């Protein structure tokens, strides 16, 4: 009976793994489609604005990212990935970062705490009056970062299921 239970568990783990693999594959296809769509929209923008109007000349060599991928380790030892947008703050972080004094009189002032400002819209690198295709490209790439988060979340989970399955299989053998 114990062997039968083990086989049933192995089967269910394998099925789970295959379902997860199918879902991961479909998310990857959707992610690639968004990326391709974004690049094609950039080509359309070049068609409308001129080939040299949408390229490396329009943006600075060094820039602050608007989206970062942060890694951490969860309680179960799994690697956890998080897509964080610039400007996103947890409720505990909102408010004055450090104490600062202001003098009412006198010429000197202690610098006030740095106020966080919203990062500039990258669309403005190409001008204010940009065509719809460039906005579409931005939307595609932004959607892509959301889908990236879903793919990143699935992978460690699948790897854990896979190791558990292999462990059980070896134990059964």
């Amino acid at each position, binding site marked *: 009976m114990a062997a039968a239970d083990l086989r049933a568990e192995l089967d269910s783990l394998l099925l789970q793994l295959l379902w997860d693999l199918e879902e991961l594959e479909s998310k990857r296809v959707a992610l690639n489609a968004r990326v391709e769509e974004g690049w094609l929209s950039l*080509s359309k923008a*070049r*068609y409308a604005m001129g*080939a*040299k109007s949408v390229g490396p*000349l329009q943006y600075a060599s060094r820039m602050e990212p608007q989206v970062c991928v942060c890694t951490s380790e969860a309680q179960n030892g799994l690697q956890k990935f998080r897509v964080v947008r610039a400007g996103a703050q947890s409720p505990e972080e909102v408010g004055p970062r450090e104490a600062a004094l202001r003098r009412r009189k006198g010429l000197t002032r202690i610098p006030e705490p740095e106020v966080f400002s919203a990062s500039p819209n990258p669309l403005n690198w190409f*001008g*204010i*009056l*940009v065509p719809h295709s460039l906005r579409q490209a931005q939307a595609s790439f932004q959607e892509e970062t959301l889908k990236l988060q879903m793919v990143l979340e699935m992978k460690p989970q699948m790897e854990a299921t896979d190791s558990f399955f292999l462990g059980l299989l070896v134990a059964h053998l």
Partner: protein
Amino acid sequence: MLGSAELCFNVDHGYLEGLVRGCKAGLLTQQDYLNLVQCETLEDLKVHLQTTDYGNFLANQTNPLTVSKIDTEMRRKLCGEFEYFRNHSLEPLSTFFTYMTCGYMIDNVILLVSGALQKKSVRDLLGRCHPLGRFSEMEAVNIADTPSDLFHAVLVETPLAPFFQDCMSENTLDELNIEVLRNKLYKSYLEAFYNFCKDHGDVTAEIMCPILEFEADRRAFIITLNSFGTELSKDAREALYPTCGQLYPEGLRLLAQAEDFEQMKRVVDHYGVYKPLFEAVGDGSGGKSLEDVFYEHEVKMNVLAFTRQFHCGVFYAYTKLREQEMRNIVWIAECISQRHRTKINSYIPIP
């Protein structure tokens, strides 16, 4: 009774008109485009272009071949032809050519000023400027902080000087002000070019004035469409519209108040030329964009310019048709390099 154009044009400009008509016959045919869209790689594209008037224009390019290199070499070839026409021209055709180059000069000035904002090196920027818009004071453009500085220090001796009348301000050149400067310069330039052609009279005015009227109206439509959802106010938008088109004055006033594409469509209901163009615009990502529809209309007008003789408009029309051909080739090259062939046939053939 023959007009003066038929009697006098060929004396000074007949050779160049013959030359430009020969160049026009060398534009890519439908069969050439069918060959290009079947290419699997950019190297295949290069081989097919060698059989056309482009010849070995990519022979000196090192591997790997990129879309940007193809575009740069095509521009260089066009510039070579244009400079030949210009160097052999007499008045008033030579002034006509100067007017044609002003549009490219404005683009170069804006590229240099925007590049300075992004801390790009002047050398990199100069390498990417349009060759048709080169002028000797270009290297000094990035030292200016305001439009007023730009005019007094750099552009006062260039052909762009007369177009700075409405652009003088002490505002720092940030992204919004650069966009306003670009459009105001272009507005002044287009109106001046239009007046030059109108004063010239004859067949040149009959051909060029409708073309420039369409260009003015197109700019008004595109500025309006692209300004939705931006920080540009309605009054600021209206100040950018060129006034030498069919929309002036009532159409421009209505367009300035439009808040979405549907309201723009209601404005063009009063204009028989533009109504079918707006009806041809697709909805969503599948159909044609407004820019595509305008490019198609521009191609039709430029092809029709060649049905008349003894006018300067053939040179303008040829340059614009060549530019459309370059856009087509770059589009096909982008689809090939991205392996995204579903939209590869979205080019505009030139009959």
